[in-house]
């Protein structure tokens, strides 16, 4: 599979995530779009890992090149899980306070 295909796929998913962040006002949907973007990046990392590994393997069949990228993806998932926990807790608290998850109400930064 040419690496370009994976790049394009990841770019598409990432951009869809961005469009979602830009066009939606529901905080939970925006949050989900962020998860989508994270996954697009993960996919690309794994694809690059495979690409580099294959190139290195042709020269040395005991190489472990590329496993770092997969560890990286693993850690991204860890961070994403923690982030979702805190983020959702914030959103729940927000909903309790203002009974809405509309980010247009969240313009307190202005003041």
């Amino acid at each position, binding site marked *: 599979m040419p690496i370009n295909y*994976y790049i394009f796929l990841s770019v*598409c998913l990432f951009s*869809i995530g961005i469009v979602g962040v830009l066009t939606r006002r529901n905080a939970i949907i925006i949050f989900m779009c962020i998860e989508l973007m994270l996954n697009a990046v993960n996919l690309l990392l*794994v694809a690059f*890992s495979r690409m580099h590994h294959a190139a290195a393997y042709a020269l040395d069949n005991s190489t472990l090149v590329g*496993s770092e990228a997969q560890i990286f993806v693993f850690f991204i998932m860890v961070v994403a899980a923690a982030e979702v926990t805190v983020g959702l807790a914030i959103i729940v608290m927000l909903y309790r306070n203002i009974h809405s998850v509309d980010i247009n109400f969240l313009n307190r930064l202005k003041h």
Partner: protein
Amino acid sequence: MSITEILFWVLSTAAIVAALLVIFSKNPVHSVLWLIVVFFAISGHYVLLNAQFLAIVNMIVYAGAIMVLFLFVIMLMNMNADQEPTKSKWMKIAGVISGGSLTLLLIAALKYNTATTGGEEAGIGLIQQLGKTLFNEYVVPFEISSVLFLSAMVGAVVLGKKEKNIVNSDIANQ
């Protein structure tokens, strides 16, 4: 066209369509469900790339735990399509245009690659191999990430609890 390629195209189409549906669904619950589809498609890609461990973890953590959490929160809030006021048209158009141009730009910038992902490999995506790397070279970050989880957990509890106190004091005041 080999079976790998067929699977690639099928999974890619599924991922993009599902992703689009995530952002265009009116109902948040539908969005969550379509996002789960995206994650499954991505897990499929991981399998195609010989990253079996990540495929499983992705399914368990994202599609399983995280998305269920989302679903749970949405249902807790009892949200539905009518609740969300739509953004202004101008903002929507601007968002779509900028997103689209970003896609075009990135594709235009990155299209001159010739490398492929095919070929022989030593099974680095297998759980045994990754486990060795993780616990030999990355054991400190691994332990630190456990601290991160702990603090995230405490943070979530604190955020939830504080609110309760305020509500209680509000009630007490009334």
